[in-house]
C-alpha cells in the first residue's frame, strides 16, 4: 500500500525502517545539498584523510545545484539532478553514516548494496519541477566549497519537502516494479 508519511530530517532508524518503496513522503528539518563537484571533493578529502565539510551521520544529501535566488528570496529553482553520476562516490558516504539521498533516476548495484548494508533510503523528487520544489525550502546557506558556485554544499531548512521513496532499506526499488505489482490502481 502506498502511504503518505511526514518525517523529520536528520533521520533516525525507526523512521527509515517505516519507509517503503512507493511511499509519498514529506520531509521537514535540515538537509544538505551536494552534486558532482562537491562529491568529488569529499571523496578526495576522504582519500587524503582530510575532514568532510559536513556531518554525514543520519543526514540526507539532496543532489541539487539551484539556480540563483532573486533579491529577497531564499533560493532559485531547486529540483533534483540525476543521481547515477554520484554512484561512484556514494557507497563510501553511506558506510560513514549518511542515511538518505534525494535525487532522480536509477542507482548502481553497489549503491543498492550499501543502502541495504547500512539501512538507508533513496528518495526521488520530481525531475523538472524546480519552481514548485523551491517553495518547500525555507532557508539556504552555503556551508562549504563556496567557489563551486551552484555546486557548493548548502544547508537547507525544508518544510514538507515532497519526495517518493524509490529504494527502501530492504532494497526494494520502485523503478523496477511493474504495473502489476506497483499497487497503483
Amino acid at each position, binding site marked *: 500500500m*502506498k502511504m503518505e508519511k511526514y518525517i523529520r530530517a536528520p533521520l533516525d532508524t525507526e523512521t527509515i525502517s517505516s519507509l517503503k518503496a512507493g511511499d509519498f513522503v514529506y520531509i521537514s528539518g535540515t538537509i544538505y545539498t551536494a552534486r558532482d*563537484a562537491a562529491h568529488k571533493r569529499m571523496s578526495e578529502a576522504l582519500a587524503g584523510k582530510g575532514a568532510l565539510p559536513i556531518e554525514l551521520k543520519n543526514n540526507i544529501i539532496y543532489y*541539487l*545545484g*539551484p*539556480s*540563483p*535566488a*532573486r533579491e529577497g528570496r531564499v533560493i*532559485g*529553482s*531547486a*529540483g533534483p*539532478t*540525476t543521481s*547515477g553520476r554520484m554512484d561512484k562516490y556514494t557507497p563510501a558516504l553511506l558506510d560513514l553514516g549518511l542515511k538518505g539521498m534525494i535525487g*532522480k*533516476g*536509477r542507482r548502481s548495484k553497489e549503491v543498492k548494496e550499501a543502502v541495504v548494508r547500512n539501512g538507508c533510503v533513496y528518495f*526521488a523528487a*520530481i*525531475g*523538472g*519541477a*524546480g*519552481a*514548485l520544489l*523551491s*517553495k518547500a525550502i525555507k532557508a539556504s546557506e552555503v556551508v562549504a566549497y563556496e567557489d*563551486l*558556485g*551552484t*555546486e557548493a554544499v548548502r544547508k537547507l531548512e525544508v518544510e514538507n519537502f*515532497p519526495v*517518493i521513496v524509490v529504494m527502501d532499506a530492504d532494497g526494494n526499488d*520502485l*523503478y523496477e*516494479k*511493474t*504495473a502489476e505489482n*506497483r499497487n*497503483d*490502481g
Partner: protein
Amino acid sequence: MRTIETTEITKQIKEMCIEANYFLPLDMKRAIEEAKDAETSKIGKHILGKLCENMQIAGEDMIPICQDTCMAVIFAEIGQDVHFEGGYLEEAINEGVRQGYQEGYLRKSVVGDPLIRENTKDNTPAVIHYQIVPGEQVKITVAPKGFGSENMSRVYMLKPADGMEGVKRAVLTAVKEAGPNACPPVVVGVGVGGTFEKCAVLAKQALTRPVQEFSKVPYVREMEQELLRKINETDIGPGGLGGMTTALAVHINTYPTHIAGLPVAVNICCHVNRHVVRVL
C-alpha cells in the same frame, strides 16, 4: 543587401534565453496538460499534475521551470544578403547568452574545459549551428538543453541492412535505457542519415519542431506514430514511476546518406523542451 547591427542580435538572444527558461512553448504546455488528463496511472497522473503546477509557478513567480537552465544551443539561419555591422557575430551571440543568464537569474552550468572543469560563470560559450539560407532575414532559434536528458542521448552507426526495423529498435533501446534519468515524459528527436555528426544535428533540430506535428513524409510519419505508441507501452511513465505517458512526441528528421551507412541519432529531451524562435 540588408544591414543588421550585432548589438540587436545580442539583445534578442538575451531575451530569448530568459523567455525559454521561464515559459514553455504553448504546444509543449498543451501536450503536458492533455497527457495529465489522459494518464491512467495514479502516480503518473499525480506527477503530471505537479508538472502543470510547476509551469504555472515558474511563470507567475519568475522562478526557472527547472534549475538546470541548460547549455544554450542556438540555430542561426542567416540570409545570404545580410551584412552584420558592429562586431563579430559569434561574440554578439555569446554576449546575449552572458547577459541573459546573468540578468535572468539563470544557472551557470558550463565548464570551460571538459576535463579541467572550471565553471565559466556566465554560461558561455553557447553551441551555435549556422546555416546560410537565401534572402535577407535572420531566423534565430534558442533551444537551451538540459543534461539529464542529453546524457541519455545516443548515436548508432547502423548497417543499411538494419533498415527501418533497425532504426525503430535503436530509438526504443535509447528510450528504455534513459528510463527515469531523462525526466520523462520526454520528447524524442531522431536524426536518420547524413554522417556521424549530421545525424546528431538533425536529431537536435527535430526537438525544435512543434510538438506532435508529424513529418510530412508519409513513411516517416508512420514511424513517428508507431514509435510514440510503442514508447508509451513501455510503462516507464512520468518520472519513470509508471504510466502511459513516457513520451509526448517522436520527431524524425532524415537526410541523404552514404551507400554504406545508416547513421541514427536519438536526442532525448525532458518534458522541459525549451525553444524560442524569432525572425529578424
